[in-house]
């Protein structure tokens, strides 16, 4: 995560977490602490320096004595970029979790729970109880409906753990099925869909497979030889070669969802034209038909014709 601009309250919140972290660590490098707090090393240095003017109030009319303030080992900080607290005047124990922090973690746990073999009921129950006790206020309920887990998901999770290759039939949209052997590297889970990223023995490259399009999946006895391969950035993998232009009323933009993340968008008189890359022309048929004509494919012309034919073929079934 990239360091973000902080306002005074954010900085105060970070410093309240910084003291228990530093006390727990004993000694820690500037870089490591900066990474833990998502700030730059320079920001971390200034936070640590700032700490040394924080302390207990002096007695009425007197300034604070030095042991009333936090202090650090300045030689270590200046000479070796190491942080060590030498005097603490409170805040040693981490603050309770805010309602938002608990809500964010609880929702994440519900999603993690949908992964076969990750944690058991007892582990989750224990965590829920601890988070509830550690919260400073009741979190807003954020509930994720459990998704049905099928055999394919179960087996893929198993293969990842055992570091073995899987073989399966893959049916890409509008293409003939192929048989693949893949060293699994990572499973992405987004919007209820599972995507397997792995080294494809057929293509000899990293590929992403939508698990709904996978069938006849089996674990092979072949040890996965590419499981340390760096997985490509998630969205890179579906950038396509076809440049498409689509038109829709500006207000309908949310219908396009993440399609627009990588699009060039031009809006005039309430109508938007988006230029974007898609994997193949045929995928535009489904995109347009899902938005019942509100989203209009302009180019390429073949894709526009294909949309009309697609809808017409659908209609023909009802005559």
């Amino acid at each position: 995560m990239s360091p973000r601009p902080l306002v005074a309250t954010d900085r105060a919140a970070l410093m309240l977490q910084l003291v228990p972290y530093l006390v727990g660590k004993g000694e820690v490098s500037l870089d490591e602490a900066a990474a833990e707090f998502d700030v730059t090393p320079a920001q971390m240095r200034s936070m640590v320096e700032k700490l040394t003017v924080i302390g207990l109030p002096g007695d009425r009319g007197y300034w604070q004595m030095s042991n009333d303030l936090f202090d650090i080992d300045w030689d270590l900080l200046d000479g070796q970029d190491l942080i060590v607290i030498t005097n603490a005047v409170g805040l040693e124990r981490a603050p309770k979790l805010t309602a938002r922090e608990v809500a964010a973690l609880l929702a994440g746990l519900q999603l993690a729970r949908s992964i076969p073999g990750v944690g058991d009921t007892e582990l989750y129950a224990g965590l829920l109880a601890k988070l509830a006790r550690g919260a400073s206020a009741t979190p807003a309920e954020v509930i994720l409906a459990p998704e049905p887990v099928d055999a394919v998901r179960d087996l893929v999770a198993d293969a990842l753990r055992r570091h073995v290759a899987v073989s399966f039939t893959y049916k890409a949209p509008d293409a003939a099925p192929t048989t693949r052997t893949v060293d699994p590297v990572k499973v992405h889970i987004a919007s209820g869909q599972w995507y397997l990223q792995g080294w494809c023995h057929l293509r000899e490259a990293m590929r992403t497979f939508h698990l709904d399009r996978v069938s006849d999946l089996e674990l092979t006895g072949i040890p996965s030889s590419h499981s340390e391969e760096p997985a490509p950035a998630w969205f890179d993998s579906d950038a396509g070669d076809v440049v498409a232009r689509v038109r829709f009323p500006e207000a309908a933009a949310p219908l396009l969802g993440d399609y627009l993340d990588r699009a060039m968008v031009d809006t005039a008189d309430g109508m938007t034209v988006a230029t974007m890359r898609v994997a193949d022309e045929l995928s535009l048929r489904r995109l347009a038909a899902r938005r019942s004509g509100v989203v209009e494919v302009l180019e390429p012309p073949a894709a526009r014709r294909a949309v009309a034919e697609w809808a017409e073929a659908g209609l023909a079934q009802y005559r």
Partner: protein
Amino acid sequence: MPATAAAKIPPEERLLNLVVALIATDQGLTKDTILTSVAGYREQSEAGASKDALEKMFERDKESLRGLGVPIETIGDWADPDDLREARYRVPSAEYELPEDIDFTPAELALLTLAGGVWSEGSLSDDARSGLRKIRALGDLVDEPILGFSPQLNPRDPAFPALHQAIEASRIVTFPYLKPGEGAPRTRRIQPLALVEYEARWHVFGIDLDARDDRTFLLSRIVGPVVAARGSFDPALREGAGERALAGLEAVAARNSALLEVNPGTEAALRLARRATPAEQGIRVPYVDVHIFADELASYGPEVRVVQPADLRDRVIDRLAATRDAHGGAA
């Protein structure tokens, strides 16, 4: 306020000095003591800032700290609790700190680390990370991380953050809601109780104050700003709301099921398979919202035919006709 050197003390230093002072006191500190002795206030007092300005600053600081989850207790006059002139302020450390007897096992930390990473953007991702930091500060237990899985949550609906905040604060909200087939949005007024993700769509569940009944709204149909009212409702209403919302959605799905004929081996067959049960003539698929399901089925074009119900079939036909006509009609 005069532009003295004292006024330049950064506000976060003042906030932190205030927390340290309020935690260190058992009996509590009066406002007067705070303004004249806590660093950050004291300098401004001595530089001649007006008492009124300082008191306002103190009020704002208290609110900021409460927003961070710092529990500031006000101990009023025993005889007259409404008289805050002699009130004392403190932060009870038992309320502020994570309880002494809470710690996390390495397996729990590994699971929490996975859970904390699911928010791909937005403020809940910062909250998850900050929560994890507090937990990690309890003890630096090293465990094997859970590798190979990257679960992600990314609520794109603009209404999500405002609704989340309103639920947490138990505030009534209003928002414009556009139902499919209605020409204009209608303003809804609800007590929001829970956010629910169901089949990859976010819903807000709450009590509709005009209908005087539980209602579930799709966030994607909220077409304008979510406005929170000043007052709050009884937070007890929120208890168990998530379970109730989920049960409601599941009951709707159990009631609505479509009979479909699907061409084997097609995209439609693959995408519907996990939700389907076999039927005599094709497959049965439950659905929650007829409009959304009709959108999905229309996208499959000739790969799927709706047998029942008629309502769903008609909506799919309308969509396909509109799509064809928008793209130059039949060849």
